[in-house]
């Protein structure tokens, strides 16, 4: 079953076409890694799927919920507010810069949306938040404030905050890029554990080895188009396209 289908997605900033005809699917329980050089449109793609950017045209479906549908004249229309609100409950997003709420404790960060958006009772939300904190190894930090945590710990809180909404799909936008190299491991470990639980995830990443080991499907983007996609053992180990080969050799050399 496909949790997410994207077809012919286009997005331009002024004259600058950032996404040009992007199509792919995300199956339930799969881990999709999106790789490619900076400026290739990876983050914009993620932001279009999470409604932080408005796509120009194309089609985006979350299961039966149609977020963006083509009108037939080359343009597309977004669904009504109620549907979009429903779709927002389908996914979570982990940012590169964590974006925790600095004035709230770790626990408050985790329960704010479940209580006020999903209408979950506060004590239930707290119980589930504690469960998630245990999962990301931060049980002892529920009363701490984000500024008291390391980058890696903040990102783990951010992952727990996204999970607290019980999303069907979790998006990651370069989750380790803002971290010191020695802290990336703890994040990748958490994502690996989620993959083992069959959490559906779409991860924009520069960590090639991680993408290779954890993902079921790799998408290589360059210049706003998908150059190559498929099994990581094929796309990363045995790339067919010259641009993929060039990108991967640059990465491994560095």
């Amino acid at each position: 079953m496909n949790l997410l289908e994207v077809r012919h997605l286009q997005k331009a900033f002024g004259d600058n076409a950032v996404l040009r005809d992007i199509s792919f699917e995300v199956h339930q329980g799969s881990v999709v890694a999106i790789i490619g050089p900076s400026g290739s449109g990876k983050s914009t793609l993620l932001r279009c799927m999470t409604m932080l950017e408005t796509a120009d045209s194309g089609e985006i479906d979350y299961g039966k919920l149609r977020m963006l549908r083509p009108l037939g004249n080359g343009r597309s229309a977004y669904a009504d507010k109620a549907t979009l609100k429903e779709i927002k409950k389908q996914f979570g997003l982990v940012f590169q810069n964590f974006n925790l709420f600095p004035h709230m404790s770790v626990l408050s960060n985790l329960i704010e949306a479940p209580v006020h958006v999903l209408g979950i009772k506060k004590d239930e939300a707290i119980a589930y938040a504690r469960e998630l904190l245990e999962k990301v190894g931060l049980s002892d930090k529920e009363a701490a404030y984000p500024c008291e945590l390391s980058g890696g710990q903040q990102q783990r809180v951010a992952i727990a905050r996204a999970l607290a909404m019980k999303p069907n799909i979790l998006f990651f936008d370069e989750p380790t890029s803002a971290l010191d190299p020695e802290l990336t491991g703890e994040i990748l470990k958490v994502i690996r554990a989620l993959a083992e639980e069959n959490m559906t995830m779409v991860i924009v990443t520069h960590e090639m080895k991680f993408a290779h080991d954890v993902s079921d499907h790799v998408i290589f983007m360059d210049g706003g188009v998908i150059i190559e996609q498929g099994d990581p053992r094929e796309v990363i180990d045995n790339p067919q396209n010259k641009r993929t080969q060039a990108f991967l050799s640059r990465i491994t050399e560095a």
Partner: protein
Amino acid sequence: MEQVLGVFTYIGSMLSQMSEGIVNSLLIFAMTLLFSLPLGLLVAFGRMSRFKTVSLLFKFYISVMRGTPLMLQIILIYFGPYYLFRISPAQDALIPIIIAFVLNYAAYFAEIYRGGIESIVKGQYEAANVLGLSKPHTFIRIILPQVIKRILPAVTNEVITLVKDTSLAQILLHEEMFNLANVIAARECTIAPLLVAGLFYYLFNLLVAFVMGRIEKKLNYYQ
């Protein structure tokens, strides 16, 4: 000892002669804060409006309020209705004075709010958006608390200025503390009442700085 006691008795008698003025000054101070702080937020929203005309209108409002003397604004608001509509000025000048103070201070507070609101990174809005939090909820629970922490030092400055600005009310109000001090000084041919008035402003502002400092400290639990 007797001399020290004498000084205190003297100050006491000064203050009691100025008491009506002190009450009015405190009233202007409290009412101005009470109304201009929320009004300033509304003006800030107008100033940041997506609609060009609205934002220009509020920009003009702020520039006039900040660009002309508060004393002039007080006089215009008191006498304006008479010159425009031939409505005779109110017997009690206190309300027009407070209105002028509120309109003036709201403009200053609006710019402080705007600075604070614009300093919050986009990521805070995006995180709230992705979590499904509504726009009003995001502003009240996520953005505003962070804004308040950031603007507190600037607000303290304004509040301290307000304490001293209340003396401008004497242009229309006989029973204003500084004016009464002046009157007593002229009558008794001594500078002492003015020093007492100065001491009053100073101690009041010491209290303002202390209270604001406490609030700042309380918000220091995060960075």
